[in-house]
């Protein structure tokens, strides 16, 4: 098996011609954007090269300038924990439809049925990003509290409990009805039997953009009350080493990270202090031993921020 297969599974990274051909696994950028944003693209490529990222996809949509950018935005990645934002959206849609009440209690139990063959699996406590939900086993938590810890501390147990309650079909249908192509929710976390069959949650950078746009008031996907509640949960994200890490003080970011051994992602909405927000998704595929991948995502996030701030300065100069 070749190295690219080890890293990327079935996806086939396209090789790029000079100047970065030496980076054999670097995928080809979208043609239109390569022409439109060469400086930003080059910066992204340099950061990726320096960090030895095997694969990188970046997409953003700026609601100030209406600029859209996509570099390999349609490439599929293992979603890691970014798919939990899709579950958050589905939960709030379920609440709007009267299917659940966010202040309802849910029994905390660490026992799940695999979608692959119906075997039983559990979320390993020492592999979970959070211990609070594990301490509540046998008791209950509100759906809103579970949603909170699913996002802010990336609790796998909370995620599986909510997915179990809502059902995979409901989540998938909700995403489909909301027009979120590019995010595929297929199983709970740590369903190793499904993983062994190649059944994984997957996403593209553009798909995550579509998903996070649903939390903006421009989309009307959620009632204002629920949208604000969902956004507050995303703002409370405790893992801040990527999208927000190198942004100026005062910039708020509503986001969801995703990290597993071979992938490191962050996606969300950035709210600069002086302008309308932009939605951004950065996805990477790396060798397991790759260091500084989170730092690289943070650097790309900062590059996009300064690129868009520069655009604003250019526009302001032109206006004068």
């Amino acid at each position, binding site marked *: 098996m070749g190295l690219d297969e080890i890293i990327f599974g079935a996806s086939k990274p396209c090789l790029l011609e000079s100047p970065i051909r030496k980076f054999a696994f670097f995928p080809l950028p979208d043609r239109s954007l390569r022409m439109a944003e060469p400086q930003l693209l080059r910066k992204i490529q340099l950061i990726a090269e320096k960090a030895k990222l095997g694969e990188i996809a970046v997409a953003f949509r700026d609601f100030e300038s209406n600029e859209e950018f996509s570099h390999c935005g349609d490439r599929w990645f293992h979603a890691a924990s970014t798919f939990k934002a899709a579950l958050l959206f589905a939960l709030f849609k379920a609440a709007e439809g009267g299917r*659940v*009440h966010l202040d*309802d*209690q*849910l*029994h*905390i*139990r*660490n*026992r799940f049925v695999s979608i692959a063959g119906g075997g*039983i699996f*559990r979320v390993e406590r020492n592999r979970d990003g959070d211990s609070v939900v594990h301490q509540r*086993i*046998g*008791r*209950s938590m509100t*759906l809103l509290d579970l949603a909170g810890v699913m996002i802010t501390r990336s609790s796998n147990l909370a995620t599986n409990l909510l997915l179990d*309650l809502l059902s995979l079909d409901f989540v998938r249908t909700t995403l489909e009805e909301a027009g979120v192509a590019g995010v595929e929710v297929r199983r709970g976390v740590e369903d190793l039997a499904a993983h062994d069959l190649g059944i994984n949650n997957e996403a593209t950078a553009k798909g995550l953009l579509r998903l996070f746009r649903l939390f903006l008031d421009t989309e009307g996907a959620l009632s204002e009350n629920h949208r604000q509640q969902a956004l507050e949960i995303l703002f409370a994200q405790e893992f801040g080493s990527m999208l927000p890490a190198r942004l100026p003080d005062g910039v708020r970011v509503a986001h969801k990270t995703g990290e597993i051994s071979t992938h490191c992602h962050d996606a969300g909405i950035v709210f600069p202090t002086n302008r309308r927000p932009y939605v951004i998704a950065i996805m990477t595929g790396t060798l397991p031993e790759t260091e500084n991948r989170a730092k690289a995502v943070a650097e790309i996030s900062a590059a996009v921020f300064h690129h868009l701030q520069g655009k604003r300065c250019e526009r302001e100069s032109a206006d004068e």
Partner: protein
Amino acid sequence: MSEPFAVIDGRTLPAEYRALLRPGDAVSDHQGREQFLPRFFYAVESWEQARETKLTAHFTLSELMSVDCREAPLLLRQFPHYVPCAVSILARYLEEFRARAEAAVMIAVNGGYRSPAHQLSRGSSPHLWAAAANIYRIGGTWLDNARSIERYGRVAESIGQEIFVKPFGNNPGETDDHLHLDLGHLLCVPASMRGNEGSRPAS
């Protein structure tokens, strides 16, 4: 328990409650045998009342009637809640179990009484009779492995042969993340309702 609750014949409840509680209705177990659901209930007016009502020295009613959002909305959100009268007998067995285990016994949410309308209710589970308890933790011990489940299962069985404990395992009829004990299909007919219990339910 000092009779703080009104005892209700479930067949006199409004139709929407009867449809969910199915008082006195027949249900079949996994072998096709017919069992009759509880017909007489305590009417619990509030969570405060349930929390303040000690069925025994260490078990409040609230512990044995806590359910989650998988319960039917009417039964979950609206008081009074109706709990089969057998719950007070279950509590006495749990108190005895607690004494023999020599530690606090934690009953799980959904682990006491569940109505037939609860999404986890299937067939003729003794939870529908308020005659079963699911226990996730005893003292500091989590009952999520064969050793602890079998150890405390033996303690429960030592009380008497009327106690049934599900064996450890992950097949139907077994448990692997809690201890299930029950008293079978236990029907309780309070004195005030004597004479009514023989009549068959309307279909």
